[in-house]
């Protein structure tokens, strides 16, 4: 990046790259566990898989302080308005990962009680398959989302 003309110790980059780098390297998830997937989400945060390697160990209880909502588990009709409210309370820019089969499509529960896919309520950036997805799958989803963000622009 440093060109011929810049003095030593100076790095030049684009605004997009700089901001996106900051965004991806400290993306704080909202603690939004619902069901089985929440246990695997917590396992991802545990010592064995250690999500803090990616600057994401700070699970925030308040949606105001969170950048990423990991919808971990089945979303019931009763939970849907709550989920939307939590999403609305999050500050821009914000991203959503739909973790697991139930959150993505309703999974094996095609019945009166469940929302058949959380993308009916909030926009989803990344779907993680599995029932439940293991910590490795979730990490893969998170890293893919980070790649997406790095490739994008901060203008909206």
């Amino acid at each position, binding site marked *: 990046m440093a060109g011929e003309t810049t003095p030593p110790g100076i790095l030049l980059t684009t605004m997009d790259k700089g901001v996106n780098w900051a965004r991806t390297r400290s993306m704080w998830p909202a603690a939004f566990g619902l069901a089985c997937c929440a*246990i695997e989400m917590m396992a991802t945060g545990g010592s064995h898989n250690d999500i803090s390697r990616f600057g994401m160990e700070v699970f925030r209880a308040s949606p105001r302080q969170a950048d990423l909502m990991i919808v971990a588990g089945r979303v019931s009709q009763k939970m849907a308005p709550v989920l939307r409210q939590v999403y609305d309370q999050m500050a821009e820019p914000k991203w959503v990962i739909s973790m697991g089969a139930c959150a993505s499509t309703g999974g094996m529960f095609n019945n009166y009680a469940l929302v058949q896919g959380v993308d009916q309520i909030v926009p989803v950036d990344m779907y993680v398959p599995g029932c439940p997805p293991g910590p490795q799958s979730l990490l893969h989803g998170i890293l893919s989302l980070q790649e997406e963000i790095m490739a994008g622009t901060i203008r909206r």
Partner: protein
Amino acid sequence: MSDTPDLVTGDRETPIIEPPVSVTEVDEGASRREVHDMWVAGTEEPEWVRTATDEGAQEMLPEGDDPAAAIQRGIAVDDDFVDSDDTDADQRQIINMGPQHPSTHGVLRLHLELEGETIRRVKPIIGYLHTGMEKTAETLSYMQGATNVTRMDYLSPFHNELAYSLAVEQLLRVEIPARAQAIRILMTELNRVASHLLWVATQGMDVGAVSMMLFGWQDRELCLEFFEKVTGLRMNHNYIRPGGVAADLPDGWEDDVESLLVKLPAGIDRHEAILNKNPIFLDRTRGVGVITPEECRQYGVSGPIARGSGIAHDLRKAFPYSGIEQYEFDVPVGKHGDVLDRYFVRMEEMRQSLRIVHQVLNTMPAGDYRTEDRKVTPPPRKRIDESMEALIHHFKLFTEGFRVPAGEAYQGVESPRGHLGVYIVSQGGARPWRLHVRAPSFAAVQAMPVMMTDSLVADLVATLASADPVLGDVDR
């Protein structure tokens, strides 16, 4: 409420059955909500609102909505909640905790009526994870059913599968080989350890010992690695099925279990070394969240909570299942019924479970891992290429499933949270006509007001963690 459309019965013209006696006279609250929600049977309780299903869901009252109707739907707090006869009523404030709250262990919502920092009234509101699993079970064949029930109490999937499989086998009247029974005990007892390890992690974290979170998960991962090796999945295994288990134990399982039997006790000792003499932990738990044995019986509370109060009841001793009576173990019992006693009970339960695992390891019988009855379990892969009959059995099993004689069966097992029961009614088809689950966490949540009233908000978090409810188990 009778004119509200009913989600369970749909448009069926079923009259609401009024039982002669209210069940709440017998069972203090463990049933009243569930009876109405799931069975549409009436109770005489004034607080007769739909809670598990989504009618109570509309959080935001539309403009001009009638508050009385809102109360009926369970949105607002009922009248006496606010207008208490107490002279300090105007000093009280109502706050809402959950359903999205880090300490509610899932999507539990608590209405709290506070006087300063003291809780004067608690009202648990459930149903945010209602998945309709009991209804879904009616559309799945008996063989698929284990996939469904394993997702209820997702911290003890093996226990769900075991209760379900035992109930189906009761109806089928099939004999399960000794090896399959021993494998079932091995997996369920290791599952108890994994579940309690997660509990000690969250209990520690909720009273401020965040390092417990890391240690607890670390040891739980050891169990999960073994589960993954045996079943292919870390959770929701679908391993214990009607007729036996899905696959035999893998080669070298003895070494894995032996290594677990070395590492897990060391982990439990380490947890106790951190917590047992920690003055903060002791202060936060001793005398907190007390429930008496009488109250436990009233609310149908079982498992470590009841044992922490001094009720020496364990289904493994009272109604042994799957051959557990041949193993030696003790049932730890507490005295004070507080959070600390529940902690001691669970820590000792882990040791006792490992004691059972040790005996299973030494006495694992040889033989088949599932019943030879080809009407119930599929033939080995090799036989399908050789035998027309095996091919037909295989085809029939995976298209129609097996038929179960008409009748009803109830089977309880001791899950890490208490008495988990599965009740199946069969009308002779390949699918259950009705499946109901008696969930231990449900009773625990119903008893929360008893444990929490007149305590501090901070103690509520400790009490909640010690009850160890799994909301998937509560709501299903």
